């Protein structure tokens, strides 16, 4: 029966032989997922190198190592590379690998478009990074690209086109994910039986399709303002630079949820496994994700409290923003309740997940502080904001990705990673990341502005501590690289099909490593095999 699948040609089983055929012409969700993961890990280290430059310059007050313009290039590039190159593609890679396995599909719904989505990315980043080597230098006006500052210099054209390419890639990837989830589920895999990770990606994909085109519109207006005499953002022509901020943040706030909802999904898979209990409040988890996604469309101006909005807008956006804390609180509550009374073990993925719950919550709380419009007049554009978004993005999004890597790498590679080194990586990361970012709260509250290469000597101590944490955190990630390489190529410990004792879900019913083609025929779904099968109770 397994041969009944109608593959086009005779490549039923096993990967194609040639390197080019296998990796460049691929239509296989696992190979494309692997490509995404390798790409994003590479970008993580490139973006990380930029961050090291930033922290080295800020180690002491006064100009230390680099020119101010280069410093600004580093902050801009660091953010663009991390957001669009590291976090987003790694979630797409995880979606590629896991969603078909989790819903019992043979592959993504549109496998060739899937391959295109991936292959656009390296080119987009060649385009973006190449500007660093151009005579005029790279973009230095911040990742938010506010005009008129961002329109200085020639690199903006390359940056804009790179953003266009990334947008096209994301939209196609998202369309693919939606079509896969809605159309490729095995019979019996009802929507409300899907793993939370799949749900989180369904909603994230919707957000992506809704807001990436808006970003494309915003940067297109930048392009025509710079090169074709339009006046969208030029007050002398009746436009308004603040208009850009509105359009950008209409994209930008949903974008931050694009980077955290899949993380919520991952954590909701891992905690039940190691607490050996089904997720607490499955439906509440799903509805919380959906309501966060909805709210994310009506809070964008909390990034603009200080630009001089009308009073009514300040108040509306302040309250709408604070509302998000409610569904977010539901999620945190449910993760904790899932652990409550569970028989827990603390393997590396679980450690990262618990750290996620605690540290992401800190980031959420600082977000709430920022959401208070009058208080934000003080915090805006200070290191407090930097601390906030690094808690949600590094100890939130990035930690969840690492948790996912440890959790699923046995399925991907067929080998177990070294638990000892995984734990060393975890403890080293979790301590250093707090040394790195916690002092930035104090710096921000004391008034240190962000995106500045030099600062008042009053800020010296905390900056030095932060930089030490930064180098330490950066070095810790080399351990991660080592663990991954060791696991994939050298580990002698074979992984069981069900690599974790408490793991449930379809992905654990296929062999480890997952064969090139899985589910040639739709699998039969048994409710007790599903992590959240008993949703009625």
């Amino acid at each position, binding site marked *: 029966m397994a041969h009944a699948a109608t593959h086009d040609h005779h490549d039923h089983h096993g990967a194609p032989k040639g390197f080019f055929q296998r990796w460049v012409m691929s239509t296989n969700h696992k190979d494309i997922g692997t490509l995404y993961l390798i790409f994003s890990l590479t970008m993580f280290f490139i973006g990380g190198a930029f961050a090291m430059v930033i922290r080295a310059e800020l180690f002491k007050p006064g100009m230390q190592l680099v020119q101010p313009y280069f410093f600004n290039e580093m902050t801009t590039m660091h953010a663009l590379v991390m957001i669009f190159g590291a976090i987003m593609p790694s979630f797409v890679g995880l979606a590629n690998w896991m969603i078909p396995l989790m819903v019992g599909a043979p592959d993504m719904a549109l496998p060739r478009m899937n391959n295109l989505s991936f292959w656009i990315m390296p080119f987009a980043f060649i385009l973006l990074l190449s500007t660093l080597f151009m005579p005029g230098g790279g973009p230095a006006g911040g990742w938010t690209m506010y005009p008129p500052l961002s329109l200085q210099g020639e690199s903006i054209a390359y940056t804009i086109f790179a953003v266009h390419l990334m947008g096209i890639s994301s939209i196609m990837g998202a369309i693919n994910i939606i079509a896969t989830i809605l159309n490729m589920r095995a019979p019996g895999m009802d929507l409300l039986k899907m793993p939370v990770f799949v749900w989180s990606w369904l909603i994230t994909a919707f957000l992506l399709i809704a*807001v990436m085109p808006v970003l494309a519109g915003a940067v297109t207006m930048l392009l*025509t303002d710079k090169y074709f005499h339009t006046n969208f953002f030029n007050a002398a022509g009746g*436009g308004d630079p603040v208009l850009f901020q509105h359009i950008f943040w209409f994209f930008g706030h949903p974008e931050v949820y694009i980077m955290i909802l899949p993380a919520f999904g991952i954590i909701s898979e891992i905690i039940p496994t190691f607490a050996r209990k089904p997720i607490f409040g499955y439906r509440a988890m799903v509805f919380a994700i959906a309501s966060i996604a909805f709210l994310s469309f009506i809070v964008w101006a909390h990034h603009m409290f200080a630009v001089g909005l009308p009073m009514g807008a300040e108040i509306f956006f302040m309250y709408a923003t604070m509302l998000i804390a409610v569904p977010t609180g539901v999620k945190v509550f449910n993760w904790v309740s899932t652990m409550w009374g569970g028989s827990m073990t603390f393997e590396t993925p679980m450690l990262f997940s618990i750290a996620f719950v605690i540290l992401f919550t800190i980031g959420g709380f600082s977000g709430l502080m920022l959401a208070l419009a009058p208080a934000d007049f003080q915090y805006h554009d200070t290191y407090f904001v930097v601390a906030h978004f690094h808690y949600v993005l590094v100890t939130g999004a990035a930690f969840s990705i690492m948790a996912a890597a440890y959790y699923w790498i046995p399925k991907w590679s067929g080998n177990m990673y070294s638990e000892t080194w995984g734990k060393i990586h975890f403890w080293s990361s979790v301590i250093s990341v707090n040394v790195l970012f916690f002092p930035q709260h104090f710096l921000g509250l004391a008034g240190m502005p962000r995106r500045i290469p030099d600062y008042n000597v009053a800020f010296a101590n905390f900056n030095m501590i932060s930089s030490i944490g930064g180098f330490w955190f950066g070095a810790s990630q080399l351990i991660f690289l080592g663990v991954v390489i060791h696991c994939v190529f050298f580990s002698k410990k074979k992984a069981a099909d069900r690599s974790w004792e408490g793991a449930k879900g379809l992905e654990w019913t296929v062999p480890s490593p997952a064969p090139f083609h899985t589910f040639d025929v739709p699998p039969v779904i048994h409710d007790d095999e599903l992590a959240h099968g008993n949703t009625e109770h």
Partner: protein
Amino acid sequence: MGHQQQDVYFVPSKSYWPIVAAVSMFVTVFGAAHWLNAQPGEGGFGKPLFWVGIAMILGMFFGWFRSVINESLAGNYNGQVDRSFRMGMMWFIFSEVMFFGAFFGALFYARLFAVPWLGGEGHGVLTHQFVWQGYEAAWGASGGGGPEKIGGSFQTIPAWGLPLLNTLILLSSGVTITIAHHALKAGHRKTLLIGLGATVLLGCLFLWFQAHEYAEAYEHFNLTLGSGVYGATFFMLTGFHGMHVTLGTIMLAIIWVRCAKGHFSKDDHFGFEAVAWYWHFVDVVWLALFLFVYVL
């Protein structure tokens, strides 16, 4: 194997078109960025590179779609694949809606907030006293030397001339394509070809009038891309819409050829439907444009 839908899956074979597409896009935008930054009169490789990229993209579309059409004709695609394609097209159109949404948002913001504020409304900006003395905010040409004079004073296109005609043209093209669709489902080949052919012609007519209107705007009304935020929103909205009509017309023409070749059957004609959806989408965008850009 179209009838076996749920019990087997279809996974398409490897393909080199995705990588060709990625490379072509890269060549195009790299060329474009370089071209944009070229000094006036300077040669440079940007321009030729851009056109090479465009040619590669066209070739890629041709090749990729040809292979998909061949696979479809060979009966490789089952009902599930068909549904995936449909979802893909629907969500693609949704993304396009959001793209236009950004420009409509800019239009509304400029009209409702930015320009009135420059005229002194709201929180007391003094631009109407110091920068443009006596400026009273108005959308479009205000007569008084306000911000719109940045590109030289201009006039706006009256809604009830060419734009109205174009509205009627697009609306009737919506009717003709629906007639064609019904004919396809009923198996009336001749009506199908005539209806679809009429749609293509109406699309071309629309574009011709649109070009005419642009020429008019530039030559007689001094309305250009640089005519303040009015010119920017006017040309970017109508321009992007025009690009979509162009694309839609080309796709319709291709579908016409495919209909003539008998590629579609009564109950298997996703290609036709996808383009029809797209055409309706372009139609609806135009209605919004007509209302908010021309009439109001």
